[in-house]
């Protein structure tokens, strides 16, 4: 049986925390995973650097959905630089260069599947894309 799809992981994906679009977001972008065509549209409301509300619409695999759920549960109240740091920490974790960041311990079996690493990071990429799009507007 594939080790990725354990009960806790499936529950996390199933919660779809934070799913749903925001009205009048300050920043929004749709980001695609070039490997598989998955996409996530990320909406943010910002108070300066701080995220005050977040919503998203997702068409993606369970790995990406689970990661998006964590974002939905933890991003509000944090700053954009916190989230960039989190993204780097996840990247390092997936490459086995460091321990699991808080909340990501259920992703341990994903580390072995290099083709899925991008799925974990996609919600973070979407946040960055949304912010870049807002700045360039």
């Amino acid at each position: 049986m594939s080790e990725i799809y354990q009960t806790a992981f499936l529950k996390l994906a199933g919660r779809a925390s934070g799913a749903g679009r925001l009205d009048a977001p300050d920043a929004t972008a749709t980001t695609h995973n070039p490997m598989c065509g998955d996409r996530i549209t990320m909406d943010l409301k910002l108070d300066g650097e701080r995220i005050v509300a977040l919503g998203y619409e997702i068409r993606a695999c369970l790995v990406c959905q689970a990661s998006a759920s964590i974002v939905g549960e933890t991003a509000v109240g944090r700053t954009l630089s916190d989230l960039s740091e989190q993204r780097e920490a996840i990247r390092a974790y997936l490459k086995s260069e460091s321990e699991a960041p808080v909340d990501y311990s259920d992703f341990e079996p994903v580390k072995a599947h290099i083709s899925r690493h991008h799925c974990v990071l996609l919600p973070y990429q979407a946040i960055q894309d949304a912010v870049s799009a807002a700045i360039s507007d």
Partner: protein
Amino acid sequence: MAFDVAAVRAQFPILNHTADGRPPLHYLDNGATAQMPDAVLAAMQAHETTARSNVHRSVHRLAEAATRAYEGARQSMARFVGAAAEEIVFTSGTTAAINLVAHCFGARLQAGDEVLVSVLEHHSNIVPWQMLRERSGIVLKALPATEDGRIDLERLDDLVTPRTRLIALTHAANVTGAVTDVARVVEAAQSVGAEVLLDGAQMVPHGPLDVTALGVGFYCFSGHKMFGPNGIGVLRGRSDLLADMPPFMGGGEMIAHVSLDRTRYAEPPMRFEAGTPPITPAIGMAAAAEWLTGQDLAGAEAHLAALTAQAIDGLSAMKGISVIGPSGSQARLPVISFTMDPLHPHDVAQILDSHGVAVRGGHHCAQPFMDSRDIAGTVRASLALYNDTDDIDALLHGLEQVRALL
């Protein structure tokens, strides 16, 4: 006599190699890359150990042997597709072959000239034409797909115009397995004096063909999908077309004479093969073509049609599964795409992998088609002649496990 699949399987070391503790391999991702038989591996090993050298350059014994082997490979590929050796350009694969045509045939096109593709094309037969559109203002049009995943040739009448210069279509669609009715395409092209390019990447693993009889100007395919190595492919271009095309890349091998002021280019096919070519891969690809030609191809076709029917029947009986593509066995390859509602193709593929079943999940480099269906992708089982009923049973059983888990 029935097709002897066990005898075929015995020739593929990777199918008989079970890694420690892993389930046996059910390799159903042949549309991405097929495996290599002993005959191909041996031909490359023999070349590397007895004749490795550069080609068309030195006069010593090894160099002559390498040149003979490389030019022999060209002749084998010419026989395989029913063309003349001078019409065979070795490239690094289908993608490189199509890009070569987009650059060199494309160099003769004017702003407003039209290239017609289809929504079922692999990205490698879409993006080079978009790049040509950027460079020279051609108009790019696309045939839609029918409900059952074929190129909708009914639309040729309104999409082919007097400005159409090239119709570039897949010979068989890598997502749905639908085989294109080439005669109809050629007729439409001829009615306006256009050329036809076929992407044969998925078609050639099923045996030799006759491009001259098909009546197409360009035919492109890859070694690694037809039981040969990767890093090698073929562009077959009709001789008058190649003769009229400027070179693609500049360098060694493609010249007739170089001075610092001016270079005269070699005749085709060398004009299009700048630099040291992939010599051993070409030899491997030719060995694959010969190996394939020597198989019981009629038997293989019946064998694969039966496996395809077994798979489609099994899939159709499972709740939530929709086969994307032709439902019958007519004019289709053993390539079966499906969705498993509400699951994501990568999750399905990942769990199948844990049961030893290798399939591909995703968009299969055919995003325009996926978008036309509003899906992210499909799960695709693509079969080769060494697959057997155990492989299909493992697929269907694996899908039941997926259902139970997710």
